[in-house]
């Protein structure tokens, strides 16, 4: 630091700062680890045989149409499991008590092909044991996982109770947390049941009554039944309404209806024959369209598809263990070929590689955690060679982490063919990367080893927040947007600028915090030039934030005006961005007018973090307007905790500043070079 | 010193908008151009045609002494009469066939059901613009559905079929009261018509 005045930085202050940062990092780490905590106990399923690598590899690449786009089976399975269980894998104890890890692909394969085993897997997370009271079940402790089989006896009551709650909600009543979780559990059960029942048509077939002379009932496969469609269609057109069909035909129709309903969701893997049509179908849709409405454009193809599924199902119970993988591969190859022909397969291999690379996870734990560690170590003996080596390692690992974020984001852009920021989730890695880049540039310019400290801390915190968001939201952020957000140019410019603006706002606050802690913990050693330097950085950041937020806000207005006719709709998110602009303008003009000086500028900059948080997160929680695509109350709590922390810090800073001022006025000036008094208007105006 | 009149002026201009005049009479001279919506208006539209277009409704005159009751899903037009409102008259749209409904009413009074053939021998009265069957009954009224039986009750009912179902006009109450209101009932039925 400064050698001129001969004043030494306060060692106690440094240790306090050290401790605070350690606490912060520790807190973030514990939040991250929370999402990876193993279950308290693993169920024993001794007859469980894990799926072979071959099968898993084939299955994960099966193209499936879900959420409005074509994605690999692995993604679909991953998000479905995440939504139900709160994580992306589960463990059980198999034969001889050995632990078996089950990933999302295997989990879903179990539900589809081996439901008796699937039902025993702990697929459902129930956070609050009070939920069990509402359905008449005795639960274990809070926060645990349950299997379908354990919940099965109580399902009827669950449905009754959740329907009641849903009606309450529709009438406008606010549900309690337990009620919301009950409704969510019922929803997850329904989703799971649709997967469990998908292959029922292949398991059971259709019962034919009254067709043979001997009066014997006959069970025929669905594909055979479907080939009877023309007969049924003819019969239906001969009578005025379906309930007047001959009994044996209506018996078939009823069964077909019911089985079709059970396979109408989850595996939507059959692309339509004509290029115009965008709607892929599940087995149930095929059955329905061939048999009930008679509208399928190519019944022969549909029947062949159903046959393929029936064969696949048959191989799961055959003696030949090798038959299933082959059949599955054949199916996968068939779907892939048809998807390719329609140009819809392009993104699938990219997405498989993206899933496998798991960029953000790797960046967090393989890059930023070590970087933070090295950072902390580098502070233990500053100015030593050891410290320099540590700092170099911090640089290396932070760059690696940044590269991972950038590559991951780039892959997502390739997969979705959309700009990198289009939803709330996207803003988090983006802002993290932006802050890291700026911190690195600042370090290169200033070389005081202050700016580079920001990189790993921000990287780690940002990605952990992203992970928490992903786990809480449990929906695929790559699914296509609402119609209203579809015009790419303005969308890109507006959203990117605003997001950069948020990053800049946090950076401004960061500099303010650096100043505050430096002053309170006396890390500057009384050197005024350091203080002025930091304040200049803060001020520069204020201007930068202002520019980005203002341009972003007005761009948003222009976009809205061209698309919907309203430049300014007083949408809460728009208002939030405006608040950032107003606050930055205030800091600027107050500084120029001499109303605030060093302390004032930095404290106001710290408050900027509150304003940015309000705009970035809080407005989504108000639930009004076009920007309301967010979710739950744990976030609201987090936001208020953040407000509280910043509030405390500002109050402490304010108190210190007042105390300092008071002291200065009471005591005579210290010895040492005193910079000449500078009138406020000319300072960086 | 010079600032004072300025301030007074400013203050006055602040207070001015506070006093707004609400006239009780206004002269109207404004007109507008005709547009495509004007071609679609109908003249002489009735209240139902203006406010509930396409909905089935009834036109009728309310006899003296009949008090209105809220319509329900089963009773499109609903009245009560007599002391303690024991008597009720209502128009109802229902399903099934004529004989089924008549026999339901008869069953409520403990009478034997009649056959389709016997239906044609029931007396006719004018209602809804046609000659419709009139059903009469006396005795203990057991409406079913968990309600208590009432002795000495009477029924007058008119029933007719339309394309979409069956319309009934039913009067039930203490026998003497029903007898009293018989003429009012028949008058009501004669005047009852389906609105356009």
């Amino acid at each position: 630091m400064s050698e001129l005045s001969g004043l030494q930085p306060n060692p106690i202050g440094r240790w306090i700062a050290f401790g605070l940062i350690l606490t912060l990092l520790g807190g973030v780490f514990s939040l991250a680890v929370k999402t990876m905590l193993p279950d308290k106990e693993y169920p024993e399923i001794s007859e469980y045989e894990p799926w072979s690598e071959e099968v898993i590899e084939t299955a994960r690449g099966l193209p499936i149409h879900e959420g409005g786009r074509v994605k690999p089976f692995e993604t679909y399975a991953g998000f479905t499991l995440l939504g139900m269980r709160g994580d992306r894998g589960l463990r059980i104890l198999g034969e001889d008590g050995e632990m078996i890890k089950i990933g999302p692909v295997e989990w879903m394969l179990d539900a589809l092909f081996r439901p008796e085993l699937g039902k025993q897997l702990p697929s459902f997370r129930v956070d609050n044991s009070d939920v069990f009271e509402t359905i008449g079940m005795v639960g274990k402790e809070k926060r645990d996982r349950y299997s379908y089989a354990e919940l099965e006896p109580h399902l009827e009551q669950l449905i009754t109770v959740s329907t009641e709650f849903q009606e309450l909600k529709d009438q406008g009543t606010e549900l309690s947390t337990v009620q919301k979780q009950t409704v969510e559990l019922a929803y997850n059960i329904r989703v799971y049941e649709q997967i469990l029942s998908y292959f029922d048509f292949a398991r059971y077939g259709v019962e034919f009554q009254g067709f043979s002379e001997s009066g014997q009932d006959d069970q025929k496969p669905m594909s055979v039944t479907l080939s009877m469609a023309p007969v049924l269609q003819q019969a239906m057109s001969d009578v005025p309404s379906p309930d007047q069909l001959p009994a044996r035909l209506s018996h078939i129709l009823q069964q077909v209806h019911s089985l079709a309903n059970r396979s109408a969701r989850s595996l939507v893997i059959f692309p339509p024959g004509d290029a115009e049509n965008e709607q892929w179908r599940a087995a149930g849709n095929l059955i329905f369209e061939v048999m009930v409405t008679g509208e399928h454009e190519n019944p022969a193809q549909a029947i062949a598809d159903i046959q393929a599924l029936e064969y696949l199902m048959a191989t799961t119970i055959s003696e030949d263990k090798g038959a299933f993988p082959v059949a599955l591969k054949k199916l996968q190859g068939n779907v892939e070929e048809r998807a390719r022909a329609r140009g819809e397969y392009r993104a699938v291999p990219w997405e498989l590689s993206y899933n496998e690379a798991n960029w953000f996870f790797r960046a967090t734990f393989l890059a930023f955690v070590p970087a933070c560690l090295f950072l902390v170590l580098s502070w233990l003996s500053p100015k030593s060679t050891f410290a320099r080596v540590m700092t170099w390692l911090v640089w290396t690992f932070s760059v690696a982490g940044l590269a991972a974020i950038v590559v991951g984001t780039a892959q997502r852009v390739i997969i979705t063919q959309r700009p990198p920021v289009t939803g709330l989730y996207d803003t988090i890695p983006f802002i993290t990367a932006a802050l890291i880049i700026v911190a690195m540039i600042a370090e290169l310019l200033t070389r005081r080893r202050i700016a580079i400290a920001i990189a790993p801390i921000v990287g780690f915190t940002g990605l952990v927040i992203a992970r928490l968001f992903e786990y809480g939201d449990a929906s695929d952020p790559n699914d296509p947007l609402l119609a209203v957000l579809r015009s790419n140019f303005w969308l890109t410019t507006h959203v990117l600028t605003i997001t950069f603006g948020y990053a800049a706002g946090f950076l401004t606050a960061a500099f303010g915090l650096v100043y505050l802690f430096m002053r309170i913990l006396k890390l500057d050693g009384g050197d005024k030039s350091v203080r002025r330097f930091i304040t200049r950085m803060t001020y520069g950041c204020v201007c930068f934030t202002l520019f980005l937020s203002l341009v972003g806000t007005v761009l948003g207005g222009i976009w809205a005006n061209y698309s919907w006719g309203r430049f300014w709709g007083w949408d809460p998110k728009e208002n939030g961005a405006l608040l950032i602009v107003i606050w930055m303008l205030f800091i600027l003009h107050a500084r120029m007018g001499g109303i605030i000086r060093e302390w004032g500028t930095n404290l106001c900059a710290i408050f900027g973090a509150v304003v940015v948080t309000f705009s970035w997160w809080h407005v989504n929680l108000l639930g009004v307007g076009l920007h309301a695509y967010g979710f739950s109350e744990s976030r609201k709590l987090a936001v208020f905790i953040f407000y509280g922390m910043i509030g405390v810090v500002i109050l402490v800073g304010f108190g210190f500043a007042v105390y300092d001022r008071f002291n200065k006025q009471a005591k005579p000036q210290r010895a040492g070079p005193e910079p000449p008094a500078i009138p406020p208007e000319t300072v960086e105006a | 010193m010079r600032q004072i009149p300025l301030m007074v002026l400013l203050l006055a201009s602040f207070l001015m908008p506070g006093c707004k005049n609400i006239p009780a009479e206004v002269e109207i001279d404004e007109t507008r151009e005709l547009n495509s919506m004007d071609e679609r208006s109908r003249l002489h539209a009735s209240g139902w045609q203006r406010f509930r277009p396409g909905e089935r409704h009834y036109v009728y005159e309310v006899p003296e002494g009949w008090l209105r009751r809220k319509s329900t899903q089963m009773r499109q037009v609903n009245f009560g009469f007599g002391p303690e409102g024991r008597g009720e008259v209502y128009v109802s749209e229902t399903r099934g066939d004529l004989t089924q409904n008549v026999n339901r009413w008869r069953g409520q009074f403990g009478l034997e059901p009649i056959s389709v053939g016997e239906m044609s021998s029931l007396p006719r009265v004018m209602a809804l613009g046609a000659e419709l069957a009139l059903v009469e009954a006396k005795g203990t009224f057991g409406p079913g559905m968990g309600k208590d039986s009432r002795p000495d009750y009477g029924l007058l009912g008119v029933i007719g079929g339309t394309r979409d179902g069956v319309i009934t006009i039913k009067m039930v109450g203490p026998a003497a009261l029903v007898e009293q209101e018989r003429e009012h009932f028949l008058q009501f039925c004669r005047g009852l018509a389906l609105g356009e």
Partner: protein
Amino acid sequence: MADETESKRTTRKKSLGTRIVNILAGFHIACVCLLLLGILTWLGTLEQAEHTLLATTKKYFSYENFFLFPEFNEKTIPIPIPSGFWVGLVFFFNLLLATILKVRRGVKQIGVLISHCGMLLLLVGAFVTQVKSERGNMAIDEGEVSDVAQHYTDHVIEVSETDEGKASKVHIIATKYLKDLKPEMVRLFRMKSLPFDVEVNDYHQNAMPLPVETLDQAQLSGVELLDGFVLDGREPDQKEAERDLAGCHVSILDKDGKKLDRVLLSSACVHPASFEVGERVYTITIRKALWKMPFEVQLDKFTHEFHPGTRRPRVFRSDITRLEEDGETEKVIRMNHPMRHNGYTFFQASWGPQDDPTATKFYSVFEVVKNPADHWPLVSLIITGIGLLVHFVMKLVSFITKQMEKNVRA
């Protein structure tokens, strides 16, 4: 001596005037305005979650109030805050004066100057939009033609003369005469060129006509029954003022004040009420104010698509033909791609019937906007952006140069 005192007095007078201008153009007023605008925006955003957008914007930013009392957590806070319009006005003049004064400060301020001009343009544009823009709703069935849009919230009473079963001349009782009416008030409208007058009472901002069959005898006493219907006053809609449907009772009086007829009016109607005066038939109705376009729009086809397999909207598209005196033009209006013509902009706003999955014939709803300041925000942004960029780059360059000098020296 006298000269000195004289010049001293002149100097003092000058400095008083200059001082006032300096204050008005100064940073303190700017900061106060900014803080107030910030607080208003923040409280308004929170309050908007509970009340309609229209009501909140009116409360916080209309020129009709000078002060307002904000609500927080549904409790009114007894601290008055100046209304947004007036703060904005003060801020505008502050900005204007400051910009004018800055011109004298020199080239170094050029970036700031440019951006201030940009902001002034934005504020003026906002004002123009507030005062001079019109917007309305146009719903057209497939195959039909329309040349008129409906205002979103303003109701008018229309009295029409008829000729051979159709309206021939339409007289308007404007919104401003109905806006302030309360149910207990009575207002007489003297129709200058008609042989009768219209007296309005029981005016409700939101009401529904109910058939008499839905009431029981007790409810009937004290309400007026007209043509089998009763006017049921309701609370104005808290979330969307557009949903309010006005209703009232109207007496048709002859020029001597004798009552000729009495009618129930409701905006929730498809046909007007008819009455006769003399030998002629007139109609009267209350409806959202109509706004005629200088051209006709014919809806040829409406298409809507959801993202395959989901209920998320993907495309809403109307194929229309624009009919004008000098010919027909085919156009497409889609979500995010409006049609701009002659100062009018047509946006794809809604469609129907949304609750009937078997429907084959659709209708499309357009939002029509006429705003003379349509493109001003873009211009203003460009100007401000350039100004800020110039200023920022100048600052950054000077900062980097100083840092590099320091690094070299160190």
